[in-house]
């Protein structure tokens, strides 16, 4: 497991999402996963797809139970909201605190802007966790038990996973703007090191969110769509 981190330290944040803590000595991936009760194949597919952008085992990932996939997506959400966002928030606050009065005012606007972004991200995540995931689980349950409750059929008529995909709003736009404002338009004097730190974090967050969205769009959505199709066909009979 230590080798994984030596190979690509960016995977640290993924490993921590699985609940794995440092200090695993020379134990192998398999041993560590067993200890933490983690499906080792799922773990390997996830870290490999983060490590190598060209490696995306769509079919393999779709083969895992939804529970595993969603648990992982939930952990990522927690990571964004509990760790990453507060970190960036603090850096941005520092930016306005340590500058003079005149540029301080415009830097506080960056602060406000970032809070607007956080609000959108929170809303987005809340909708997924409270509306989309429960729906997905009820679809999976019906599929596996081969028993379709009427309430689900009714719900399917109103809402399907395709709606989720189309609702998938573009919260990336605000992140994109924030990067450009800091890179191109921030008035001097600002602490350059602080700006670099903020930008690095924003780029990382963006890359992470893109990987996250890739799992939703290419693994979760097709898997659910397949089961919805089955339900629709078998209900009609």
């Amino acid at each position, binding site marked *: 497991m230590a080798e994984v981190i030596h190979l690509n330290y960016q995977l640290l944040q993924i490993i921590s999402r699985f609940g794995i803590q440092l200090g695993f000595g020379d134990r192998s991936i398999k041993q560590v996963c067993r200890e933490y009760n983690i499906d080792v194949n799922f773990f390997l597919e996830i870290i490999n797809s983060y490590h190598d952008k060209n490696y995306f085992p769509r079919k393999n990932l779709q083969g895992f139970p939804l529970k595993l996939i969603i648990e992982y997506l939930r952990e990522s959400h927690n990571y964004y909201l509990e760790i990453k966002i507060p970190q960036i928030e603090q850096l941005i606050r520092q930016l306005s605190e340590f500058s003079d009065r005149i540029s301080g*005012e*415009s830097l506080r*606007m*960056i602060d406000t*802007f970032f809070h*607007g972004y956080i609000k959108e991200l929170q809303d987005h995540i809340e909708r997924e966790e409270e509306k989309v995931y429960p729906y997905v689980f009820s679809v999976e349950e019906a599929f596996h038990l081969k028993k379709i409750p009427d309430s689900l059929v009714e719900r399917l008529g109103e809402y399907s996973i395709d709606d989720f995909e189309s609702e998938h709003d573009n919260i990336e*736009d*605000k992140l*994109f*703007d*924030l990067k*450009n*404002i800091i890179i*191109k*338009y*921030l*008035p001097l004097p600002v602490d350059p090191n602080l700006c670099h730190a903020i930008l690095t974090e924003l780029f990382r967050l963006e890359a992470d969110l893109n990987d996250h969205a890739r799992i939703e769009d290419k693994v979760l959505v097709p898997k659910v769509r397949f089961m919805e199709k089955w339900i629709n066909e078998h209900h009609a009979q």
Partner: protein
Amino acid sequence: MENVNVIIADLSPLSRFGMISLLRQLNYPFSFREVSVPEKLKNIIHKDQASLVISSASFLEKFSDYQIQTMLPGGKYVAKLLINDLPHSQRKFTGFNEIIEFTDTERTILRKLNKTAASLARLNSFQVMPEEISDREKDVLRLVALGNTNKEIAGKLFISSHTVITHRKNITAKLGIKTIAGLTIYALLNKLITSEEIN
């Protein structure tokens, strides 16, 4: 100088060949692309990145003004010429740099073509300069930042909503900022608006 891509959109082969032979008399490195089917124009314009589009009125007749405006490339580095082969039609086409009458003499046509090509060549050599937003774009940006809708902006600046949309597209392309909240910060940082105005 790089090649200038010219799209000749005309139903009549006589017209197309005639226009090409006239353009060849001018001393510009043109490369030509002919379009004879109106439905194909949009795709070809997207693909070819034309700097000069020459189209006849009969070719464009079936499209609405709005369709033409969105189909033809915009910006000051592109020139659009109309060949008015429907002199008796009520339809007035707008947005063209020059109109060539079907009855114009060879000399007149060459003069019009030359004028357009010369201004294109001049503009394209300046193209490497960084793009700044124009005064008009600043007006639009100010109103966007203050929370106006496209319709309200159109009313305040006495322009059409389509023009407002075009300005907004250009502003976003030039500044690299997509959201209204982001544009507001840009406007504040550049003192186009004050924080009191927002509140």
